[in-house]
């Protein structure tokens, strides 16, 4: 456990000090602030625009960060051979991999927290009344980040190329937003092959709709159960991806 915490801590420090992290964070802050401008031209709906645009920006920039960072999390270590100096010590590959992933997530969540604080400040300046739904929406965005990070890590271990890993991750991310539609088409399909392939895609790709609380902001009386299911789903999907990563890592040669 001590080793896992150490790997996670130094990965966190390394990512926080990375200039690319700051650039993305800066962009996130700029875009969040730009929502002010959007709100100004949107008349009576200004608070809603501020809210949606801000939360969307936070999620988008966090996704960018986690996507690129997770793909290079182990790949770069292999290419630069820094991994040699860790795996030639009494550290299991699973401890190392989980520690790296947790450290990266903590760094990205830290970036999200900074962006959220700026966003909240802007909202409060516009006389917005705080609701717990904001934190839940942010939390579910965090779950989406975790799922995408785990997927990116899996593809990076599977394909050994940063470009193809990013491409696969983006492809899954897009498919994940249409998983309900894919399921619908699979159910309606009369061909067995189409049905099987459709169902396979539906179960393989993450259902990103679970994490989009901001799309259902005003729907009453559904929140508790839906949020619980979403959290459990995100954790299980991530755990499954991590198990695949551990399996790949076990047989990997350096």
């Amino acid at each position, binding site marked *: 456990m*001590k*080793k896992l915490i*150490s*790997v996670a801590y*130094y990965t966190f*420090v*390394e990512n926080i*000090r*990375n200039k690319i992290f700051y650039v993305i964070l800066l962009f996130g802050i700029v875009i969040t602030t730009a929502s002010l401008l959007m709100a100004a031209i949107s008349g009576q709906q200004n608070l809603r625009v501020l809210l949606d645009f801000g939360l969307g920006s936070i999620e988008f920039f966090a996704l960018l960060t986690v996507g690129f960072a997770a793909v290079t999390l182990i790949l770069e270590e292999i290419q*630069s*051979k*820094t991994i*040699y*100096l*860790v*795996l*030639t*010590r*009494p*550290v*299991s590959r699973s401890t190392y991999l989980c520690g790296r992933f947790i450290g990266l997530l903590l760094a990205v969540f830290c970036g999200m927290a900074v962006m959220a604080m700026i966003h909240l400040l802007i909202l409060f300046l516009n006389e917005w009344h705080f609701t717990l739904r904001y934190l839940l929406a942010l939390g579910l965005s965090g779950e989406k980040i975790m799922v995408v990070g785990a997927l990116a890590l899996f593809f990076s271990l599977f394909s050994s190329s940063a470009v193809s890993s990013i491409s696969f991750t983006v492809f899954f991310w897009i498919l994940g937003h249409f998983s309900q539609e894919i399921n619908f088409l699979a159910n309606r399909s009369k061909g067995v092959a189409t049905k099987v392939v459709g169902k396979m895609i539906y179960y393989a790709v993450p259902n990103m709709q679970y994490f989009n609380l901001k799309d259902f902001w005003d729907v009453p009386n559904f929140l508790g159960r839906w949020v619980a299911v979403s959290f459990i789903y995100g954790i299980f999907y991530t755990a499954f991806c991590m198990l695949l990563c551990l399996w790949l890592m076990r047989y990997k*040669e*350096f």
Partner: protein
Amino acid sequence: MTVIETTNLTKIYKRSHLGKVYLTTGITGVSFSVNRGEIFALLGLNGSGKTTTIKLLLGLLKPSSGESLILGERTHSAKVLKKIGFMPEVPYFYPYLTGSEILHFYARMSEVDDVGRRVDKILDLVGLFERRNKRLSEFSKGMLQRIAIAQSLIHDPEILIYDEPISGLDPLAISEMRGLLLKLKSEGKTIFMSSHFISEVEKVSDRAAILARGSLARIVEHGAWADREGELERIFIKEVEGASELGKIKI
């Protein structure tokens, strides 16, 4: 007492591209043993299998056949890895961490007690104590080499495995490295190193194994070159002549 032992160690790399599988021989049937307290050098041309042998010893690669034992145990067990200090040919570290932080990290990974005191001691040993809070991205090549030495010694290991420890060093650093290797030997540590700097190997090692085209060509005892300067080089050239996969440069 035998510390490192390999028996018929073989590594065949498999790479597949567009459905075709390509096989490349890393090493074949390599057997040798290293005794406690000696400096054992692995000599060979580029691509002869020196790094492959080291990676197999450290468990970074899995053998296609044969086996390697360190202290009588399978080489990649945690118990064994605790007793090994490794320095790769071109050490690369996390650039955003400081010298002190990176050593703290490696010390924790190696289960060192009283990490803070050990890190300070080792930083002092390699002459980097004053610069311990500088980021590694600001370190020169020589300073990074010292960090590489420090990380290999941070847990006071019994066995040191160094891959090309003097490659790319300036003459002063080579002399310092030579001194360090002899000092570590005098402390009872076993050193297994690969190199293609034969003159340096001649000065420090007790035995040298010559690899040619992935096979062990010969193991040479110190006595064979001790009295005649340049003898190891002559033996080496005789053993590896024609082993290079590249054509000769036409002068």
